[in-house]
């Protein structure tokens, strides 16, 4: 029986993060691929496949409740430039783990002070290992 991955631990710089349920998503950083056709004549074509190496970035995105501690975390991660490491660890027994090195928050993260307010975090990094 397969189990949905929805109970993942996020570690940023070795510390666990309390994040909003169901808000985590990521990209491994394979980059974008493209195909186009080259004409070989006689109505025939040949596929040309290429990888856009410039788009090979990992991404980890999640929201976390607007708490004092999370505000401190946000500021620390942002001011740490690209010297962050984000790890995603699955529940024990799943053997699920991804590591995103040289991670940086590129945009200015937005915080909400509402009752159910969140802070939106998006790291861009090296491809996941």
């Amino acid at each position, binding site marked *: 029986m397969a189990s949905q991955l929805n109970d993942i631990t996020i570690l940023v710089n070795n510390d666990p993060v309390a994040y909003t349920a169901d808000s985590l998503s990521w990209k491994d950083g394979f980059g974008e691929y493209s195909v186009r056709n080259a004409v070989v004549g006689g109505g025939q074509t040949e596929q040309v496949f290429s990888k856009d190496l410039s788009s090979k970035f990992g991404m980890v995105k999640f929201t976390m409740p607007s708490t004092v501690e999370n505000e401190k975390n946000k500021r620390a991660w942002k001011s740490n430039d690209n010297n962050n*490491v984000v790890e995603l660890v699955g529940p024990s027994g799943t053997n699920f783990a991804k590591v995103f090195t*040289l991670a940086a928050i590129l945009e200015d993260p937005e915080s909400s002070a509402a009752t159910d307010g969140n802070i939106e975090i998006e790291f861009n990094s090296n491809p996941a290992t």
Partner: protein
Amino acid sequence: MSDIIYELKHPFDYAAKGETQAASFITLFAPSFKQLDNATPIKQAFTAAISEVTETLDGIDQEQSEAPEDINGTQVMQLMYRWSGDMSKILLYAQGLFKSGAALVDGEENLTIPLMEKMQLSDFEGLVGAYIANFIAPSLMDGT
């Protein structure tokens, strides 16, 4: 002595300066007053272990029923595991102590709970033994 170095037998990966690297040692610091909630139960357990274990040995001198002056981490853990108390609780107190700043990975990064969970149990026990031998046992001898 305010700090010691414990060499890891089984290195684990940790995050540092944007990359992951293998930890090779842990720097341990003497407990401060703010860490008494975790340090005191460990000290109590160590004292109880000495009393209890020596009481069960035949023909032992009364003088020897106190903490020996020169004891290493391995001997400490051998002693502690012969104690009738719950050692898993002591290891959890040690976990609390280490995460509160008493331990740094490679002398730089805080030893957080996720990092402790990456450690092999034998290394963690070695860490606890070294901590007791170097900071808890001496404090029972001369109060330092």
